[in-house]
């Protein structure tokens, strides 16, 4: 059996209480012993409601947050043991697309600057010269359904769906293997969401990417992901094949959540 690309091994995170005017507030246990393994080339869905710890876990995978206990392994290597330079090289291979395409693009940068920036940051890994970077940026734009004519434009000239395409092109610029998708379609209208979801499917087929898809939208997760993990208040509640989880949820929480899904069909 091939080694999983990402292993989250018994990860816990405790945020200490803040000291304020009236003493110390209670500490927050954001993650409680979460263990997940993500295989290469699969789409893994992480589902949870607000406050469940989705974001803390995502930030931990990017090593923007250090777990209180437990390990996060990328291709078998523990993130916590890596040096700064090693970590930076690793980040070329793990990229993220954020939820809000209106807030995650610098309004003062052109699309070309936005898409080539990761290539500059990861120059030592990619080794691309200035002209190659521009060519690569044009390639990436056509990959996400935009064109070289968009290189000189600014984010405000694009619709929400187009902006999310730019974010995806930027995430692909450093040639990652693992893409963290943090609610990439929840700020978009359904017709645009459908286009972005199709683009994600298409990119995965073409580039062999691994997706770690974070969402509270169960219908989108069911559509895109092969395996799903449900977390609730920092704990892993249920994990398994998407079809099994949606057809026969075992835990009470999963049953409640899936029962609350507003399906577009008339209730009988």
């Amino acid at each position, binding site marked *: 059996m091939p080694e999983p690309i990402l292993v989250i091994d018994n990860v816990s995170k405790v945020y200490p209480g803040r000291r304020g005017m009236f003493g110390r507030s209670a500490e927050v246990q954001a993650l409680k012993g979460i263990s997940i393994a993500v295989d290469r080339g699969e789409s893994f869905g992480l589902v949870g*409601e*607000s406050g469940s710890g989705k974001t803390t876990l995502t930030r931990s995978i990017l090593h923007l947050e250090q777990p209180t206990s437990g390990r996060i392994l990328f291709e078998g290597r523990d993130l916590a043991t890596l040096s700064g330079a090693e970590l930076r090289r690793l980040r070329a291979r793990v990229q993220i697309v954020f939820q809000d395409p209106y807030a995650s693009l610098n309004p003062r940068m052109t699309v070309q600057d936005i898409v080539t920036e990761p290539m500059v940051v990861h120059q030592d890994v990619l080794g691309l010269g200035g002209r190659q970077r521009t060519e690569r940026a044009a390639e990436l734009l056509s990959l996400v359904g935009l064109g070289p004519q968009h290189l000189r434009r600014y984010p405000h000239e694009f*619709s929400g769906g187009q902006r999310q395409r730019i974010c995806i092109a930027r995430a692909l610029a450093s040639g990652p293997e693992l893409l963290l998708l943090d609610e990439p379609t929840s700020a978009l*209208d*359904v*017709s*645009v*969401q*459908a*286009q972005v*979801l*199709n683009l994600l*499917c*298409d990119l995965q*087929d073409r580039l062999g990417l691994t997706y770690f898809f974070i969402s*509270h939208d*169960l*219908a*989108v997760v*069911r*559509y*895109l992901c092969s395996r799903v993990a449900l977390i609730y208040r920092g704990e892993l509640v249920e994990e398994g094949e998407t079809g099994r989880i*949606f057809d026969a949820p075992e835990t009470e929480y999963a049953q*409640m*959540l899936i*029962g*609350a*899904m*507003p*399906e*577009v*069909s*008339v*209730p009988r």
Partner: protein
Amino acid sequence: MDAPLLAIRDLHLTMSSFDGEAHVLNGIELTVRRGEIWGLVGESGCGKSLTGLSISRLLPSPPARYLRGEIRFEGRDMLKLPISAVVALRGKKIGMIFQDPTTNLNPAYRIGEQLVDVALAAASHDPTILDCPPRAGRRERKRAARRLAAAMLDRVGIPNPEARLDNYPHEFSGGMRQRVLIAMALIGRPDLLIADEPTTALDVSVQAQILKLLKGTVADHDIGVILITHNLGVVAQTCTNVAVMYAGNIVESGPVAEVIERPAHPYTRALMAAIPTKETRRGALQGLGGTVPNLIAPPPGCRFAPRCPLTIPACTRALPPAVDIGAGHTAACIRVEEERAAVHA
């Protein structure tokens, strides 16, 4: 048949901007009766919120300008009433709930005070809601209003309502705040409730509870509801009727089961094909090409024509009228009959 609670006829609204005047509502027709929950559904910028805000005249003028049409609420045209008369209806006969429960409560006042204020204002219009003797003093009226506020919190499912009246909004979670707002919207016993994306900011489990609450309220009080949402799933699970909007027009409307099971307008069909369901296979989701038209210079004829797979030259000649296709189901598409014939053939 008795007169409808709300009847919107041929409503045209423009909004002026630096670039020109945008024709944002282009002949809206909507009739709401008691006991009905109308889902007003569509994508961003289709005019669903503007329709809701127009009913209670909450759009400042300028930039808003009503070109023609009428909004009859219990027979009276809201567009012709003096604004003071409209204000007297808000919160009393017409309740409203908005999307963001955090910004719609005053953070500086206890929620009890906020509920009591609304109850007292509503009582000046209809004293029976306080359920106290006609010559009751101010103190007594206030006590009655507080009792009513606690009863309302209880009804929307807030545990320990008496004590919660003394809490500030920040002491409530998002779902609980939305319940407080629903209680506030219902405290004046409105006949019409306009809920603008009431569950969009909430988790699905809380959303399900709030929608159930809304349905229960309609059943108990025989009011009419307009539920504005972009989520067809919410409509399917909650509403009795639905109106699908696109670029300032209602393109299709009818009983919810009719429209969801037999969508007749190409836009409704495209919208439904874009939502992943249990049966949707990976890669088989259908997006909708093109973009929403510019409403300052809208395309001639049908506003959906530039993106529609069925467009023929006649589509761009005139705005298609709503065609009645039976069972209260209408679709504004000139090819609807021919399409249905093809389906049944």
